[in-house]
């Protein structure tokens, strides 16, 4: 890894700009970290969920008497046990806690009942003993039928989650060169480690409870749980359970309300933990999408107009479908200048599995289409993939197709040029190790069977929430007798925010030790750990709280030690009066005092889109370029991604090794979507809900990653940093697809590209 600029001026261990150690790192590597499924409580019951085997069916009756008769079964809860709002949802409250008698189940795997018992095996027997009578209905599985209106309405709130268009510029423009294509993106799973798990502990004698849960957003969970339970929010305390990973899959409610209902009904602690198969049914996935795009360009390759229609299958319940759609259509142009566009997007309801947030959030789908188009445009004009992109690169100050002015740092040209400058990998040698060859130890091929290809992908990704949403974050900083502690409700899902919070406090307050308070709802909301937003948002809140404490400390120190209040600074671990040159150690200055500040950080407000898709709907953007080199066994359709070269716009680098981890991990996830990861749904049923058949890249599939980090301070960001979580997984997918197209000469309009797409 190389960086183009030096990072922070401070080199004190653990401060901003250094490779500070993660507080959870050693425990995770050594196996000592407690994930949410490791939680246990005295007198605890085990919970389990009964799910529909049908994608669409009316529930005629539910008989739980045989289950309740089983020795060890404590209680069963169904829709009639939900005291408050029977529905929940992040945007639209349309998803039932349990499907009710007389209502329908709308996807295969929808919860119908939950049981609590003395042992997981007892739970299994109890689930098998609950008799549900269904009237099976014909599922709506083709999203196009919802757009055309021929599908029957499968929910009182309709089959269309959102329909939005973007119209801008002179629609009569016709390019000298026109390229078009229809692209398809399959349903990807977040496939996080540390499966869904929650432990609910009812208050003794009270009406509230405590819920330990692996989630992305404690306060949003609490809001939805409180509404369903009909209990005031302040009677529910949520504590973050150890999270293995999230990638968007923990943004929606899954087992939270079920666990609480069982705990309240039984009066005992209850834990529900999903297995891998249930996890596939228990959370939302990446939207499968069909995208048509047509680019008009002049003879020099300048993009004149883009036309597109996008259809996103949101599945049975809304989740974040409307927001995913808006992200997709507002990123139609990618990181390129374009004045004229006509885009129409639909997100619809079907009886397929519900879809929602996943790393990249709609931009992944749009980017696969626009980068496939850029490759075609280059071919049509006889320009190289690099040249066609350089002739269109976006810059700060450009007007987007939404009318919004790009006011983020936008080093698109630099991303492309730096990526282009990275050395190509060695050619495949005749004596190459078999693990380097497509097919690997399957011994399917010899180097002579292999063709190499190169492809490009460049992307733009919005950061933070959009369309008028104030996704603020809160943090509290305390300095008590020289000991600093920070508290926030920011979900640590593996991204390393706990480490970053310590780095911020160490840097601002001049201390080496920073204690982390419990991550729970005893402080204000931090918003969701998603949208590449926590470094910016919760980082901003921790910074603000620490700075307030610092001001208080300076006030105190100026009085106590007779320093010039207006001329004190932190240098290393000292307070320095730059007039007198006096130095007082922070540990000395903070003795016997107690400073305590809680601050919120809000990003600048954004707007809704109008009916023509115009409006300042996004907060900020980040950019990245990827170049993929692949080896393809053209006869068998097997692929080995040899190298990914990338240059990413990251703002200020706060922790180099963490950025590197996000880049490498994102590339592996984007590679998965390119060549193997897909939830296969047929007739509304998931056919591969296991890691035997849902294939994730292994270490042998992971490419060599050569990265350059473009470090340019982002003035709008509280710490100068941009979110780095999502961008690496977005344009790597089309880069790999373009490389396979380059090797095979095939159009390959769909990801994941299956072996038979290449060779049959």
């Amino acid at each position: 890894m190389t960086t183009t600029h030096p990072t922070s001026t401070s080199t004190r261990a653990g401060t901003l700009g250094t490779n500070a150690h993660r507080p959870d790192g050693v425990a995770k590597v050594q196996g000592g970290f407690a994930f949410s499924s490791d939680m246990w409580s005295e007198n605890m019951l085990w919970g389990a969920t009964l799910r529909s085997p049908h994608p669409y069916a009316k529930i005629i009756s539910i008989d739980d008497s045989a289950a309740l008769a089983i020795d060890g079964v404590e209680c069963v809860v169904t829709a009639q046990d939900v005291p408050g709002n029977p529905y929940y949802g992040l945007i639209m409250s349309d998803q039932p806690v349990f499907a009710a008698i007389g209502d329908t189940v709308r996807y295969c795997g929808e919860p119908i009942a939950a049981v609590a018992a003395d042992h997981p095996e007892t739970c299994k027997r109890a689930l098998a003993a609950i008799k549900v009578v269904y009237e099976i209905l014909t599922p709506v599985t083709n999203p196009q039928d919802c757009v055309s209106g021929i599908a029957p309405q499968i929910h009182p709130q309709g089959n269309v989650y959102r329909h939005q268009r973007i119209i801008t510029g002179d629609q009569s423009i016709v390019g000298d060169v026109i390229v078009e294509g229809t692209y398809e993106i399959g349903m990807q799973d977040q496939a996080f480690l540390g499966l869904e798990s929650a432990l609910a502990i009812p208050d003794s004698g009270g009406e509230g409870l405590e819920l330990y849960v692996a989630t992305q957003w404690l306060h949003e969970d609490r809001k939805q749980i409180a509404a369903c339970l009909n209990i005031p929010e302040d009677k529910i305390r949520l504590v973050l359970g150890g999270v293995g990973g999230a990638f968007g899959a923990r943004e929606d409610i899954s087992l939270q309300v079920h666990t609480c209902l069982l705990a309240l009904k039984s009066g005992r602690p209850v834990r529900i933990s999903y297995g891998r198969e249930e996890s596939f049914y228990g959370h939302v996935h990446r939207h499968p999408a069909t995208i048509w795009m047509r680019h008009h360009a002049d003879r020099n390759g300048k993009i004149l107009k883009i036309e597109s229609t996008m259809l996103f299958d949101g599945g049975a319940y809304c989740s974040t479908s409307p927001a995913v759609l808006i992200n997709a259509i507002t990123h139609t142009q990618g990181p390129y200048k374009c004045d004229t566009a006509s885009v129409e997007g639909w997100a619809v309801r079907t009886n397929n599995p519900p879809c929602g947030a996943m790393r990249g959030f709609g931009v992944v789908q749009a980017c696969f289409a626009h980068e496939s188009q850029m490759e075609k445009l280059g071919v049509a004009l006889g320009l190289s993939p690099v040249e066609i992109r350089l002739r269109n690169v976006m810059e700060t100050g450009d007007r987007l197709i939404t009318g919004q002015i790009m006011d983020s740092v936008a080093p698109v040209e630099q991303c492309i040029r730096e990526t282009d400058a990275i050395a190509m990998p060695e050619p495949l040698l005749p004596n190459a190790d078999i693990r380097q060859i497509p097919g690997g130890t399957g011994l399917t091929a010899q180097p002579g069977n292999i063709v190499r290809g190169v492809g490009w992908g460049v992307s733009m990704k919005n950061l933070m929430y959009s369309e008028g949403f104030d996704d603020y974050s809160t943090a509290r900083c305390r300095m008590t007798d020289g000991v600093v502690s920070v508290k926030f409700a920011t979900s640590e899902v593996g991204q390393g925010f706990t480490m970053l919070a310590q780095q911020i406090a160490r840097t601002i307050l001049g201390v080496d030790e920073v204690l982390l308070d419990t991550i729970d709802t005893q402080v204000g909301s931090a918003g969701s750990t998603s949208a590449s937003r926590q470094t910016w948002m919760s980082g901003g809140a921790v910074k603000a709280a620490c700075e307030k404490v610092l001001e208080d400390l300076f006030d105190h120190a100026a009085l106590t030690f007779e320093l010039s209040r207006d001329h004190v600074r932190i240098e290393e671990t000292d307070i320095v009066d730059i007039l007198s040159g006096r130095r007082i150690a922070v540990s000395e200055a903070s003795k016997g005092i107690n400073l305590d500040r809680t601050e919120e950080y809000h990003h600048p407000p954004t707007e809704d889109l109008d009916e023509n898709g115009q409006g300042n709907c996004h907060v900020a953007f980040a950019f990245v370029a990827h170049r993929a080199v692949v080896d393809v066994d053209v006869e068998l359709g097997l692929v080995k991604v040899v190298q990914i070269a990338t240059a990413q716009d990251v703002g200020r680098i706060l922790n180099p090794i963490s950025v590197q981890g996000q880049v490498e991990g994102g590339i592996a996830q984007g590679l998965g979507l390119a060549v193997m990861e897909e939830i296969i749904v047929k007739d509304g049923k998931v056919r591969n809900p296991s890691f035997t058949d849902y294939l994730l890249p292994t270490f042998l599939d992971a490419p060599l990653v050569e990265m350059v980090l473009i470090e340019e301070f982002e003035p709008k960001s509280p710490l100068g940093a941009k979110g780095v979580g999502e961008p690496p997984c977005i344009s790597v997918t089309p880069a790999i697809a373009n490389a396979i197209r380059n090797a095979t000469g095939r159009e390959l309009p769909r990801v994941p590209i299956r072996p038979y797409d290449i060779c049959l």
Partner: protein
Amino acid sequence: MVEVNLHGRQPQTVINLRRVEELHEWSHRHTQQTVTIGSAVPYSVMETGKIAELVPALAQAARTVGSPQIRAAGTLGGNLGTCSPAGDSLPVLSALNAVIHLIGPQGTRDVAWGEFMLGVKKNALGSGEFVHSITVPVIQGWQGYAKVGTRNAMVIATASACLVRDTEEGLISIALGSVGPTIIRCSQAEKWLRKTTSLRAGAQINADLAVEFGRRVSDEATPIDDHRSTAAYRRHCVAILAQRLLVRSLA
């Protein structure tokens, strides 16, 4: 154990064979030129070393099984007991005409591979019987295995093939995995090849003939469409694998 852990099977009785030492042993009989491998010998032992020298195709198949952790635990006994058409070692046992030694309440008996696998996850094991060991011949000539999967490691076979060329007898045998309800031995293609060309030491085969051999091999496959792949792709794979293995056997 997969059945118990993942699919909720609740067996009434489980007998642990782990400490039966003879199941963990293997031997090479020089006089008969055979190798006998206990049903509890793990794949990690077959991947390298003496077994790999004597039965290289088995070593190649063993190397494709799961991850290192799984290869340290997985055995031929497991592949035979489960009898999935995707069992990685089974095409090798078929192409080598392995003999399966069974042991049970009625004593011991030997079953030729051809009579052992009866269908998808169906085999000739009687009630109370288990696999004791497997005997395969040590072949003069060449043998090789190849397996297609959608990722480059840790994958269930989309299609697989084992080709054995016995230069003394002038015979070629080829068996296919994951393209039918059982492992498929391509006796028609074998017969055709034997009639068409010499397979003894020093024989040469032209490229067209290898392609035709592949086509005939794939004609004997009976693959299906499922969530892992398509029948057409599986049929295509075994044609390419047979062609490539035949060329390799003569290189």
